[in-house]
């Protein structure tokens, strides 16, 4: 069994405390909102409360007259209103979602900011908008974005007008779909839906922006998930050269994909206020602002149709996957690439036809949230598979075994899986260790109870590791030795709470041969290192760290050369242990310390640092057919959930989640388990309670009193199962985990609920009302 622990590394495959945990636990860690600089004032945004409206007039005179208010800016006062990424810094005159910023202010205190915002008078003319996926696609729907396109013969067409975000359209065409269905003995068609979901990181978005001659023009300290993306907003907002705009990432209190758009916009707005006032400006989002303007997980509508032979082989798969992109968007075109590639699940299906696209609506924008479409897709696909199994009267595990991708198979994009693929072993292991069939039998005895019923379900999935064909997966790292024998490591990728600093420290130690405790990870400062792309797509370790691996191996080689010179031998006769170089086989008598080696190099003028750039592999899919090699490798997951459903109240108690993941090489079991546990909690929220209810663009949850995610008391018993395999694609054989850890959990819980109640789940979350009544209720009598 390919469980963890058979790989031979010095520093990988070993438990290591997170290098930043002491700072976080003791409160020493400094977050962006902790930054204070002399002369600092505060900034704030006036947000529109309409989902779609024209600004008739803005009167800022009363606000400007308040003593202590230094700037009140509207569209006419700034170089550009729309950011490089579509989202507006300031409304261009039409507001397209609730919370769109129409004016920004800077004042001496936060109270004065509030006073100023209240003193701004805005006259709006409200418009009828579109709010849902269905509404956006209606024949006579209002077109809310100029670039929106319409449907022709049911597919997005550039020459038609409408609300479809054309760049986000990805078809998959594999085999012959008509032939596939014509040969099928059994055909089933179903529809599924998922809601807006909020990341709910504890730290809200924050920044301090200041003029900084040392940096060039400005420096921003920000809670930025992707500091180089934030720099793009900073330079863009004030129209300054990138090399004079510096972004420093502060410790992040959670991100999960969310600290991108709003942080960038806030940094841009603060920079505009800095330029207008010549004072450092701090902006911190309230929780309500974070709800209103931070990206949400895309709601999706799914329609799937599958054709199977009578022995349960899926031979045809057709699907439509439509995402609600919100009013402004720069994410759905990337997200849907992934959504399309994974649109037929982790299954070996010869004939596939799927269409994936996003629509513009008058809502908060959807963006990246841990999974980047996969939690929604896996929810729908895995419920569908269980519905197929039930309708056909075959065992749901057998159905998966018969169809799951194995080594040598072709994916939906016809990529051949050449590396070791352990899907069947994983299913076997999870079925056995969870005692799936025994429990299924035992739980079925509760299925007549009027009060509480138990259910169990298994789901399987896979995920392309890293960016893949979405965008070039490149990155650079700088590894520097210092005269005292310590090491600095620096990269363009960021610690976002996922444990990147710790993983990179281990990877650098593995390459150099030194211990982890003499390595210090430099946080991201955009003036110190080239852009390595975003810290997203679970790419940090698997692909992003390739350059760290190579740079540290190269630095280790240089250090060994100097050690050999000092030890008067050949470099290949030298090894390192506990930061001392020794001659192999010399009983440890002939040694020289790493500090002496580094010191010698400094004073003999030898290179002290290695910078390595890792270029992406040759990947790409054809845009018309979606065919091609999509990812360097894939992470596989098998998750089993057990629930108890209160049939009289609809309360879903998640009893246990056993989450098995193929991580290729487990860099650090502690952080891997941490990801899996956190992923289970987040997946539980997605499955059971979490939804940002939106009523005609108005968010009905804007804070944690009504937005319900699981607490430590709610989380189930958790079993993390770590699988390893041999796959050379990722750094030291590692695969993605950050997103896999959560992507199948909601699906597994929903399937377990369906097992308990006997009623399929076709819409998330499985909250009280939907579980009891089969539909959600909302205020004002509107039944969704």
């Amino acid at each position, binding site marked *: 069994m390919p469980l963890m622990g058979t790989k031979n590394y010095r520093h990988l495959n070993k438990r290591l405390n997170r290098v930043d945990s002491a700072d976080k636990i003791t409160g020493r860690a400094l977050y962006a909102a902790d930054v204070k600089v002399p002369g600092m004032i505060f900034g704030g945004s006036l947000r529109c409360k309409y989902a779609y409206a024209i600004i008739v007039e803005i009167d800022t005179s009363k606000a400007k007259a308040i003593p202590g208010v230094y700037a009140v800016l509207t569209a006419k006062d700034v170089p550009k209103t729309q950011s490089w990424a579509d989202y507006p810094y300031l409304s261009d005159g039409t507001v397209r979602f609730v919370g769109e910023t129409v004016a920004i202010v800077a004042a001496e205190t936060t109270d004065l900011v509030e006073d100023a915002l209240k003193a701004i008078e805005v006259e709006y003319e409200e418009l009828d908008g579109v709010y849902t996926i269905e509404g956006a696609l209606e024949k006579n729907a209002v077109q809310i974005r100029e670039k929106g396109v319409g449907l022709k013969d049911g597919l997005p067409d550039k020459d038609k007008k409408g609300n479809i975000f054309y760049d986000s359209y990805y078809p998959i065409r594999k085999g012959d779909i008509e032939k596939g269905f014509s040969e099928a003995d059994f055909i089933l068609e179903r529809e599924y839906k998922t809601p807006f979901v909020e990341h709910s990181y504890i730290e809200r978005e924050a920044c301090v922006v200041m003029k900084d001659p040392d940096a060039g023009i400005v420096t921003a300290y920000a809670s930025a998930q992707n500091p180089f993306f934030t720099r793009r907003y900073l330079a863009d907002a004030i129209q300054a050269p990138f090399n004079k705009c510096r972004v420093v990432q502060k410790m992040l209190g959670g991100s999960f994909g969310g600290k991108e758009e709003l942080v960038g916009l806030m940094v841009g707005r603060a920079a505009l206020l800095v330029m207008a006032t010549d004072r450092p400006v701090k902006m911190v989002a309230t929780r309500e602002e974070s709800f209103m303007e931070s990206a949400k997980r895309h709601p999706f509508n799914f329609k799937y149709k599958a054709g199977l032979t009578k022995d349960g082989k899926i031979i045809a798969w057709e699907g439509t996957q439509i995402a609600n992109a919100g009013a402004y968007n720069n994410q759905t075109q990337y997200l849907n690439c992934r959504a399309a590639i994974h649109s037929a699940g982790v299954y070996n299906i010869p004939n596939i036809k799927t269409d994936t696209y996003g629509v513009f609506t008058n809502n908060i924008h959807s963006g990246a949230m841990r999974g980047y479409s996969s939690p929604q897709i896996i929810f729908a696909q895995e419920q569908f598979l269980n519905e197929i199994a039930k309708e056909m009267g075959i065992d749901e595990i057998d159905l998966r075994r018969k169809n799951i991708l194995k080594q040598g198979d072709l994916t939906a994009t016809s990529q051949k899986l050449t590396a070791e693929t352990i899907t069947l072993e994983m299913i076997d292991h999870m079925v056995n260790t969870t005692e799936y069939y025994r429990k299924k039998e035992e739980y079925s005895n509760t299925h007549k109870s009027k009060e509480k019923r138990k259910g169990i379900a298994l789901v399987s999935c896979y995920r392309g590791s890293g960016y893949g064909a979405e965008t070039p997966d490149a990155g650079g790292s700088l590894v520097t030795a210092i005269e005292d024998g310590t090491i600095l490591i620096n990269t363009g990728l960021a610690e976002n709470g996922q444990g990147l600093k710790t993983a990179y420290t281990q990877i650098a130690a593995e390459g150099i041969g030194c211990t982890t405790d003499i390595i210090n990870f430099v946080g991201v400062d955009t003036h110190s290192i080239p852009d390595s792309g975003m810290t997203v797509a679970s790419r940090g370790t698997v692909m992003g760290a390739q350059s760290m691996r190579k740079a540290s191996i190269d630095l280790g080689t240089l250090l060994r050369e100097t050690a050999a010179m000092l030890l008067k031998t050949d470099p290949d006769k030298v090894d390192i242990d506990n930061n001392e170089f020794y001659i192999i086989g010399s009983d440890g008598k002939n040694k020289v310390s790493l500090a002496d080696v580094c010191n010698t190099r400094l004073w003999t003028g030898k290179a002290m640092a290695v910078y390595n750039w890792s270029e992406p592999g040759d990947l790409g899919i054809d845009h018309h057919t979606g065919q091609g090699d999509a990812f360097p490798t894939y992470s596989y997951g098998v998750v089993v959930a057990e629930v108890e459903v209160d049939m009289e109240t609809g309360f879903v108690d998640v009893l246990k989640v056993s989450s098995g993941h193929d991580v290729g090489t487990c860099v650090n079991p502690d952080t891997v388990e941490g990801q899996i546990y956190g992923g289970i909690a987040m997946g539980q929220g997605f499955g059971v309670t979490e939804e940002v209810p939106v009523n005609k663009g108005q968010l009905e949850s804007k804070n944690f009193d009504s937005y319900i995610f*699981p*607490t430590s008391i709610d989380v189930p018993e958790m079993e993390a199962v770590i699988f390893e395999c041999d796959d050379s694609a990722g750094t030291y054989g590692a695969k993605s985990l950050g997103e896999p850890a959560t992507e199948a959990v909601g699906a597994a819980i929903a399937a377990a609920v369906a097992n308990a109640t006997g009623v399929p789940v076709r819409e998330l979350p499985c909250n009280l009302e939907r579980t009891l009544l089969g539909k959600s209720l909302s205020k004002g009598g509107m039944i969704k």
Partner: protein
Amino acid sequence: MIRFDYKRPDSIEECLALLDMYREKARLFAGGTDLMVEFRAEDKKLKDVELVLDISKLTELKIIKLDQGSISIGSGATFSQIIENPVLEKYAPFFIEACKTVGSPQIRNTGTVGGNIGTASPASDSVPPLVAMDSKLVLASSKGTRNILLSDFIEGAGRTLIQPDEVIKSIQFKKLKPEAGFSFVKLGRRKTLAIARMNVAVYVESDKDGVVTDVRIVPGSATPVSKRIFEAENMLLGKIPSYDLHEAIGKKVSEKMIGITGKRWSTPYKEPVIASLVKRALNEATGVKENE
């Protein structure tokens, strides 16, 4: 956020004098767990408030005592203080169960029972058991004190009969029989830190033959004001508890709820669920098991 002045009186007398002076322009801060949220949300009802009177440090409002069969709880007693009180544990265990479900440890450490009553939320956890015990309130003003039944005091959602110069001083009720049956059942959207979607407090006293001699049934979050549902109670009085009877009583409570609130957006959910919760609470209080 609404801005306000802040004073922390050193005694009830000082507090009452200030209250008499400021009247509608003053608001009492007991634990602040609701009040501060309302200030931040700029709740309309606070728009004229100028002064916040912090009574959270008045120890004379925090006393819990048993006196000749009657229990008195100072309005400033926090939920954490109540949960750990041995007198209440013995004579009003379902009240303690209810208080344990309030918010989180942080909220229970600062939130007070008097504040919970004064806020008059239909979703209050402490109010249903207090109403079930026919609790009365002692209200104090600079002119003196008066007593009022808790179920009369709360007039509607967020509305009470408190006068602008009054403070809730204490809550009083007769001690219950420790051997009687108690139950507090709460349904939230998660297991903790959850506002009650619905809850119910039940008290059942029986004679040696198992015949019910006293019963109180008080649902929460079902109606704007938590009250005893006498028609439902009467169904159990003089009877021997049974699953079917409890089921019927649950349906009666549900029927009464709709009688009071009419059909609302939430009725399709609340109608069956309150019936189930009442049934479960009665089963738990009387030791009746689920009918398989």
